[in-house]
């Protein structure tokens, strides 16, 4: 039922904006009737008018209420002929009007006319009729939809133009008429308009087949099913979370044990090495030093890595003759890191090395671990250099590493011994330095 706010102000004083829409099928139906008529054509527009109030609140806290009148055209009622409800003078005959509209009279919100090749302006008779219809139907803001069909002289182009008027207002008489889903839908979604579907057939079919889609509460069955699936998935996920937590804890425990064992091993090995060294020192004055560089590279490399507990960045592969692959490095580091509280991602990355640095893994058998295994000759120099380099790096790591600082100091002190050894070695074994590797490094004496 078309209606307006009770006690609303006069039409002219009302500053509400009007928005109008017409359903696509009604629009096309009107066009169809119009285009097929061989003269001017007219009819009534049925629908609903409602008022929407938008309250907008801005930062200034002043709320403004905007009154929007929404006109929705649901249907139309074409007149079979011209002058069917008015006479030559343009006087509307109420009986004829009722006969045409019957019980649809109360949902009339406007009327329309179609005329070819004329201006988009209300004509003399249309204005007279509109005034009377406004009065008779009791619709203060009755709208008038004017269709015009413009054809070019050679009939090559035809344009259907339509303008919606609200002639009872003094200003802003033309309103934009929107047709939902007619236009550029590539940027918009397909809109469902609020225009109800008034087709009886449609209602019947939906009622018949509705039970297949809707449950007793009127909710679509699919929705329930999907929700059930969702719930099931959620449960599973929760369960898995628990399991993961448990396994993680077990893994942590085991890792701790492993670390402890490793420490013990390292300690034992160090002691053994110290003893051996003392023995060797005793023999060093007379016998050639035996090169043990190849004996335990992997061990030393392992030890060196153990010495560098996480979270510090691990040492370069250093001068090991068989530098471990990067993946090996990572896997070892992972095990090292698991015991730590907060491993940083940076800790997982090997420190970048410049090519040609003494720390860079050299291709020959000269690569050595830290100065724990003492090959003599020129190798010792390399070791020394390496050791010193490593020491520098060690020093950096010292800050992060409380547990193993003592071991670092040991290593440093070990390296400090080297110069003395090398000097004596050099004094004696220069020619020998050349033999094992054939390299001219021996000339690099300090």
């Amino acid at each position: 039922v078309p209606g307006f706010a009770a006690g609303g102000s006069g039409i002219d004083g009302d500053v509400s904006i009007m928005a109008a829409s017409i359903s696509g099928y009604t629009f096309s139906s009107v066009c169809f009737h119009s285009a097929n008529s061989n003269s001017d054509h007219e009819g009534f527009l049925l629908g609903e008018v409602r008022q929407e109030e938008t309250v907008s609140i801005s930062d200034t806290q002043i709320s403004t209420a905007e009154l929007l009148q929404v006109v929705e055209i649901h249907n139309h009622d074409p007149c079979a002929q011209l002058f069917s409800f008015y006479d030559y003078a343009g006087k509307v005959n109420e009986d004829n009007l009722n006969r045409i509209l019957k019980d649809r009279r109360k949902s009339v919100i406007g009327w329309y006319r179609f005329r070819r090749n004329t201006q988009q302006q209300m004509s003399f008779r249309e204005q007279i009729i509109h005034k009377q219809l406004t009065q008779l139907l009791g619709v203060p803001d009755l709208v008038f939809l004017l269709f015009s069909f413009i054809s070019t002289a050679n009939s090559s182009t035809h344009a259907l133009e339509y303008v919606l008027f609200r002639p009872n207002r003094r200003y802003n008489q033309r309103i934009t008429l929107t047709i939902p889903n007619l236009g550029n839908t590539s940027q918009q979604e397909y809109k469902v308009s609020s225009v109800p579907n008034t087709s009886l057939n449609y209602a019947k079919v939906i009622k018949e087949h509705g039970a297949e889609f809707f449950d007793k509460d009127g909710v679509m069955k699919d929705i329930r099913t999907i929700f059930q699936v969702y719930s099931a998935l959620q449960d599973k996920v929760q369960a898995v979370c628990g399991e993961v937590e448990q396994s993680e804890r077990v893994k942590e425990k085991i890792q701790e044990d492993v670390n402890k064992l490793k420490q013990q091993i390292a300690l034992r090995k160090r002691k053994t090495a110290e003893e051996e060294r003392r023995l060797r020192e005793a023999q060093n004055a007379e016998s050639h030093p035996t090169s043990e560089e190849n004996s335990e590279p992997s061990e030393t490399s392992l030890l060196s890595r153990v010495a560098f507990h996480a979270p510090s960045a691990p040492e370069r592969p250093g001068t090991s003759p068989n530098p471990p692959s990067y993946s090996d490095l990572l896997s070892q580091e992972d095990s090292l890191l698991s015991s730590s509280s907060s491993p940083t991602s940076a800790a997982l990355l090997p420190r970048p090395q410049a090519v040609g640095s003494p720390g860079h893994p050299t291709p020959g058998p000269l690569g050595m671990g830290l100065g724990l295994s003492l090959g003599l000759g020129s190798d010792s120099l390399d070791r020394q250099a390496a050791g010193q380099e490593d020491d520098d790096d060690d020093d950096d790591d010292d800050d992060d590493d409380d547990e193993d600082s003592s071991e670092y100091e040991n290593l440093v002190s070990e390296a400090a011994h080297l110069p003395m050894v090398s000097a004596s070695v050099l004094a004696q074994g220069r020619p020998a330095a050349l033999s094992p590797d054939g390299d001219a490094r021996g000339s690099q004496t300090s």
Partner: protein
Amino acid sequence: ILYCGFYLWKMNNMSPEVALHRISPELRPLLCSVVRNGRVGLDSTNCLRVTDLKTGCTSLTPGPCCDRFKLHIPYAGETLKWDIIFNARYPELPPDFIFGEDAEFLPEPSELPHLVQWDAGDPECLLQLVKELIQQYHQYQCQRLRESSRLLFEYDSLLEDPNYGRNMEIYAGRKNSWVGDRIVLVCPSFISIMSSLSQDTALDPGEDVALLSVSFEDAEATQVFPKLYLSPSIEHALGGSSALHIPAFPSGGCLIDYVPQVCQLLTNKVQYVIQGYHKRREYIAAFLSHFGMGVVEYDAEGFTKLTLLLMWKDFCFLVHVDLPLYFPRDQPTLTFQSVYHFTNSGQLYSQVQKSYPYSPRWDGNEMAKRAKAYFKSFIPQFQEGAFANGKL
């Protein structure tokens, strides 16, 4: 800036026959009477014009089926462009109208008897309806004048004068355009003159018109533009657009004073022209009687020309007499022409004499006599000149 002058009406440039040919056959008689015989308003020289013929039928309908068009109606110095909409399929139905820019003009149907009692069988019906609409439009303009009281005062005062009565068109100007309020009326005393003029100078009172248009650009009447509209034949008869000047509208003056002034001026001019006509006729008559067989030919309608063939001492010569419009004020031009001698360009040797003894106060007879005397005195000179400068 006040300017006064003449403006010619433009002639109808759309041939009515073309329009009728495209109109749907049932509607043709209605349009025919509008276009061919239609005279609405004061200006009877300007016919109603029809343009923009379109059809309300589908484009597949075979022609001719045009049933809607634009009608151009002269009114108060403006041209109204109204759309008239019929339906070719239902020719018995009355038309609808769109009043162009006058969107607020909404006549009361009860004041339009030819609409209420529309009879498509009567070919005059549309024309009558248009006339009724014009009447309503006139009232509408008067209504609009209520807003500016100046012109309304003028209008009302003129209305009371029996000389002008209802023969006026009012146009209330628009605020946004440069068109001011305007009043157009027929110069009343002109009507009586027209009939006398027509007897003598073959002017058709039905076709010819003299309208005075006065535009008020502002409410204080400080910018008032009067214009005199004359139909072409009248204008020509009065000596062209340059000859007639109307006085400027006195600032602060009233139409009721001004209009008679203008009309008087016009009347005087016309009378002068009539007088001149009579004088010329008299002149020619006198010459005819004096020179008898010597007259070769003369203008028997306007009495503006006369040619004589005369002989003096075996010397034959022609005299062409051209009588100016404002004869006898202006003296006639005499052109002497030798019948024997040619100039270098192949024309007959001639001499023009514009000043010779003459007085406007002489009557025709006297002028003829004096002319004869002048010829005698001048001819020897002319003869010498002809022999000297011309070739045989």
